[in-house]
Each structure stands twice: as C-alpha cells, then as structure tokens.
C-alpha cells in the first residue's frame, strides 16, 4: 500500500509552496491517476515518494516502509519511470537492463524470462543490442520502462509514462497496467492524457498549486462537480 500523509514541500525559504498537506492512500490492485496542470506539484510529490526529495513535513510509506527511514526497503519494492527518458546513452539497451537487474538482485533465469517477455511486448527485442544513444525518444522511454519492471515491483510509479510512446507501445503499457493490477500490484502515475486516466484509473487525484483539490473515482468526482460531465470538464472546472 502507498500511504502519503500530510506531505509538504516548499522552495525559496518557504516562498514557493510546491506541495501542501497532501494525503493519499492507494491500495493493492489499484490504478491511481495523479492529475494536475503544469507546475501543480505532481513531479515534486513523485520525487518525494521515491526518495529523490526530502519533504519538509509529512511522510510517505510504501509496503509498510517509510521512505525516509528505510529508503532501501522502499526502493526494492518500487519501479520508477521518470518524465524525461534520460538514461546512460553510452550503454547498450541490454547493458542497461543488466545493470538494473543487478542492482535489484534479479536472478539470471528470472531476468531472461522477464526480458524476453517485455522486450517482445514493447518491440525492443532487436534494438536492445544497440547503444542507447541511437534510440529514439520513445525507444528510450521503453527501455526505462522495461528496466523498471524487471524486478516485478509491488508498486510502479510513473511520471507521464505515455509521452513519446507509439500507439502500439502505449496499448502494451495499458495492457500491462491492467494485468499488474489484477496481480495485486499498485500503479501510480501522473498524466496529462485525461482520456487514459478516465478509462484506466480506479481513482484519480487532482492537484493544483500544491494542494489536492479532488480525490476519488470518476463517479465521485462527477458528483463533486457542478454538472455531470467528462473528466476533462471536471479538470478544467476545478483547476480554473
């Protein structure tokens, strides 16, 4: 389970409040969409969830472990896909995947099995032997995605995972998300693609100016809004 409690982070000696008193719980088997306009605090929240930023206040625990107190236990349980597909350009795709599998302690047999499956699903089985510097934006995104899934994490945290993916890969990602959720894993992802959030997420949270302004299923959000409409209209109404 992901448990975020009263999380806050500010910059410039408190002048800019990036995240304020954010509390969210995500249960196993849930796909959670984290929405918000540019600069709303989505990436800051995600960075605090994975230990890249220290919160000013509040806590994040994943699988019962606190990210500040037991960072390694949390990191073992999560797979993270950043918003920018920045990765070691001078390694081949396979060298990168091997590196990630080594750091997560994935056995040779398991990594071979998972690599074969994921590389085929994301059509990277041939390009994996090439240097990453020769990859397109989407291919880099895919190799990072595959690297984050090799250890079969309990929680997958993704920052704008659909950006740069071709329709087939995007479809493969959505299918993978559904399957992982059936296996009881948690998917937590930020996105601007409201259609995806609407169709795939069990629950969504909308953040604006650092504050969580809506949280719930699509139905619950529709009830909160002035008129029953699409997630896009609800989003526009709430973030105005």
């Amino acid at each position, binding site marked *: 389970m992901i448990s975020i409690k009263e999380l806050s982070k500010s910059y410039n000696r408190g002048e800019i409040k990036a995240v304020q008193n954010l509390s969210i719980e995500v249960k196993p088997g849930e796909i959670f969409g984290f929405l918000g306009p540019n600069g709303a605090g989505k990436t800051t929240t995600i960075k605090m969830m994975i230990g*890249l930023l*220290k919160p000013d206040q509040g806590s994040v625990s994943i699988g019962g472990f606190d990210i500040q107190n037991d960072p390694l236990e949390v990191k073992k349980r999560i797979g993270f896909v950043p918003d920018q597909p920045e990765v*070691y350009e*001078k390694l081949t795709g396979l060298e990168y995947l091997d590196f*990630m599998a080594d*750091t997560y302690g*994935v056995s040779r047999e398991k990594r071979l099995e998972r690599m074969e499956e994921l590389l085929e699903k994301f059509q990277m089985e041939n*390009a994996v032997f*090439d240097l990453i510097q020769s990859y397109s934006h989407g291919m880099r995104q895919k190799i990072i995605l595959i690297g984050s899934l090799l250890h079969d994490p309990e929680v997958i945290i993704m920052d704008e995972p659909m950006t740069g993916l071709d329709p087939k890969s995007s479809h493969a990602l959505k299918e993978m998300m559904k399957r992982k959720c059936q296996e009881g894993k948690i998917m937590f992802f930020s996105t601007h693609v409201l259609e995806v959030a609407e169709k795939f997420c069990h629950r969504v949270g909308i953040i604006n100016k650092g504050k969580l302004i809506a949280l719930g299923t699509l139905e619950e959000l529709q009830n909160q809004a002035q008129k029953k409409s699409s997630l896009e209209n609800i989003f526009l109404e709430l973030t105005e």
Partner: protein
Amino acid sequence: MRWKFFWYLVKINLKITFGLSAWIYFFRKKDRRFWSGLGILSIVLISIAPIFYLYLRLVQETIQSLAGTGLEGVVITSGAILASILVLVLGIAYVISAFYFANDLDFLVTLPFKPAEIMGGKYVGVLVSEYLTIAPFFIPPVVIYGLNVSGGLFYWVFSLLIFLFLPVIPLVFASLGVMVLMSLTNLGRRKDLLRFLGMILILVIVLGANFYLTRLPEGQEMEFIMGIMEDPDGLIAFTGRVYPPSIWITRALAGQTLGMRFVNLLLFSGVSILGFAVLMIGADRLFFRGLIGGQEVSAGKKARPGLLDKKMRARHPIVSIAIREIKILIRVPIYLFNSIFILVIAPIALFFPLLMGTGGVNIDEYIGLVEPELLVLGGIGFFGLMALFGPALSSSISREGKLFRISQVIPVHPNKQILGKMLSGFLISILVIPLIFLAAILYIPWSLGEIILISFLGFLLSFPLMGFSLLVDLIRPYFTWQNPQQAIKQNMNVLFSMVGGFLFLAALGWGGFKMLEIGFNPGWIYFLLGLFSLIIGIFIMIVLFRVAPDRYQKISL
C-alpha cells in the same frame, strides 16, 4: 559572418560557460551558493599559491642570472611558449567538447545562425577560459621582466595586447585540427573511437614536434650551446623554434627599439586576426559536416535466437557499478581522453628519446648514479602520480550529471555504490603496470621482484589518493555542466584532488628519501609506506561511508 549575431552568441556562451546568470541570481537572492562559490575560489587560489610562489622565484632568479647578457627576454619567450602549448594541448579536448558535444547544439543548429556564427560564439567562450589557464604562466614573466627593466608605458600597453592575443593562434590551430578530425570521422558506429584516436594523434604530433625542435644536435652539444649563448638573439631564436610567434612576442616586449617592438606587435596581432578569419571561413564549410548527420541510428536488425541469453551478464551490484563506470568512461571520447590519456601518452613519451636521440645525454649513466632503492620509491611514486592524474574518481559523481537520479533510486546502499566506484578506479590503475614494465625494459633496470613490489605498493598508495578524490567529488559534486569537458575541466574537485594528492605524495616521498638518507633498511621503508597508505586509505573509506548515505539522500537535482 553577421557580427550582430556573433556577439549575441558570444554573450550567451559566456553566460553559460561561466554560469554568470546563476551567480547574479544567487547574489541577488542572497543564496549561500554565492558565498560558498567564492569560498571555493579562495581555497583554490590559496592551495596553488605555494607552487605559484616557486614559479615567481624561478622567473626572478632566471632574470637576475641573465642580467647584463641581453638574454633576459628569454623568460618572456619561455612564458609565451609554455602558455601557447598549454592552450594547444588542453584546447583540443576543450574545443571538441564545446564545439561538438555541448548540450545546446541541437537547439542552436535549428536557429537561423550561420555555422561560423555558432562556432565563433563557442570559440570566444573557450578563449576566455584559456585566459584563466595562461594567466599564471604568462603574466609573471612579463610583469617581473617589466619591473626589472623598468618598462615604460608602451611596454605595459603592449603586454596587455599580447596577453589578449596570446591564446588566439594556438586555439585556431586546435580548432582547425578538431574541425577536420570531426568532419572526417563523422562516420557512425566507430566514430567515438576514431575521434579518440584522432585526438591522441594530434597530441603525439604536437609533443613529438616539440621534442624534435628543442633537441640539441647529437655530438656537438657544447658547441651549439656556446653558439647560441654568444648571440643575444640566438637563445631566443632557439627557444622560439617550438613556436615562432613567441619570438615576435619577445621582440614586441623586449626589442631594442620602439619601432622594432611596434612592428612585431603588429605582426603578432595581425597573424592572430588572420588566423581567426581563416577559422571562420573554414567553419562555414566544415563545422556542420562534423556536427550534423553521421548519428548512429538503432539498426534494429533481427537478432539471432538465443543472443539475449548469450549476451546477458548477471553480476554483483558492486561489480555492476564498477563496470558501468568503466564502460561510460571509455565510451565518451572526452572522458577517455582526460582520464586515461596520461596512461596512453606516457609510454609514447617514453619512446621519444629512443626515436629522436637524447641530445648526448646518457640516460643509463644517469640512472646508474641513483640508488636502486630510490628508483623503486620513484616507481611507486610514479604509480601514485598516474592514479592522481587520471581524474576518473575525482569527477566520478559529477560525471553522472542528471543521471545521478538513477544512482539515488536504485536499491543499492550508497556505501556499496562507493565501493563500486573505488573498484573501477583500481581496475583502471592496472593499466599503470605495463608502463612500469615498459620503463623497466627501456631505461630502469628493475628486477621482476622490484616490478611486483612497485605494483603492489603502487596500488596501496593509490588507495588513499583515489578515496580522497572520490570524497572531494562526493561532498560537492558539479552537476550543472553543459558539455563533458566541463564536467572534468571546470570541476574544481579535480584540481583539489590533484593538489591534495600531490601534497600527500610529496610528503611521503620526502619521508622515504629522508629515511633512506639516515640509513633505514629499505625493506622497512617499503613496509611503512604500504602500512601508512593502507591506514590512511581505510580512514578515508570510513569518512566516505559516513558521508555517502547523507549525500545520496540530500543531493537534489
């Protein structure tokens, strides 16, 4: 060339290269990074002050010893040559990095600028950096000479002009060489290797030419030296053979008449301007040829069945981190050039005297005069120096740049990651062993046992040096570099590590020498040297293990 755009790009480049906007922002916002930056700069200046003082004394004493002979001007020639060679040698890697691997190039080429305007802007950025490199080498001889001969107003004005023009010509040569190299090697798959070999080739040619031009004619050394000492211009002309513009510089500052000085100043500045013009004309034709296209695109060729299984490697995380470090280091030409360059160039330099003669100096005779134990200590020190001059660890964290995020996210304890980095340093230092063998074959009669002893103690000596380098980089990594060269050359951590490591080596060397002098058993000296290195190394590792978890958690990109 449209000058308006050229100056615009120069302005932007200077701001990026020296982080001027960031400095102004930090100052205005009263950010502590402004003061910590000033503090670092002060520490750098203080740490190089003793070496600088020795250089000033050398210049002063040289001028005093030459007083009345009319040869005093040779200090200016030497200063100009030293500064120019530095610009040329350091400039090659700097120019490649700034012209071809800067982060903003993909963006700049899409804007309506001419190639010469983009390259001109970058050239000035590198030129200004080079002023900082040459200032400590060129300004002291000029100032001390000026004070000794009471140079008038013209002397000081000419000095300033010459200083401003000094790096132009060597940097034009470096830029032209690099531009030709990059356009010839823009060939896809193997281009990084070709570029690295090209850089080494250019350097070998430069150093080889330097060596060749300054050697004395075999068999007539004394007559030759007497000949050049008798003619006041002879010594300057001989010294200036390496780099003829240094003769114009000397004559512009130390010439007999004002007319002669003026003509030489015009000649030097005119050739510098002409060189820059040639570079700009060449840039319009060649610059984009090396920059655009030739990018490797994933072939995506159908892979053979079972290839994944065959190529996959499962390793311990520490080993995996060490392998990652080494692979990235050797696959980025600039990193390879800066980190392992010394290990490649050293054996070539060892061969120069054999190929071109030693100018009548009998190396065997000299070596025969040195005590064998001192030679072994020298070998160990050489091993340590090589570990110090290949800044693989002193920029290890900084080189990760934005990708340090990956190191922060993976579930490998920071201390294990530190061990992985240390392991990579030890693996690279294995490359020093063939150098020791080569030196043994060519010049120094070390036995096999002594070679093993040197290598073993060399490794032990490298331990604290590498640990210290990594610690310095871990405490204050430099992530905001714009091109790979900046990650190393504008990284103060590299300089700190070198100065600190050098002082450590000097102290140990002095200690070893003194112990030999008072009759200590050499075996004990070796033992104490190894033990001391090990203890200091372990102490540094303990500090590293204390610092690393906190730094890995707190560094925010």
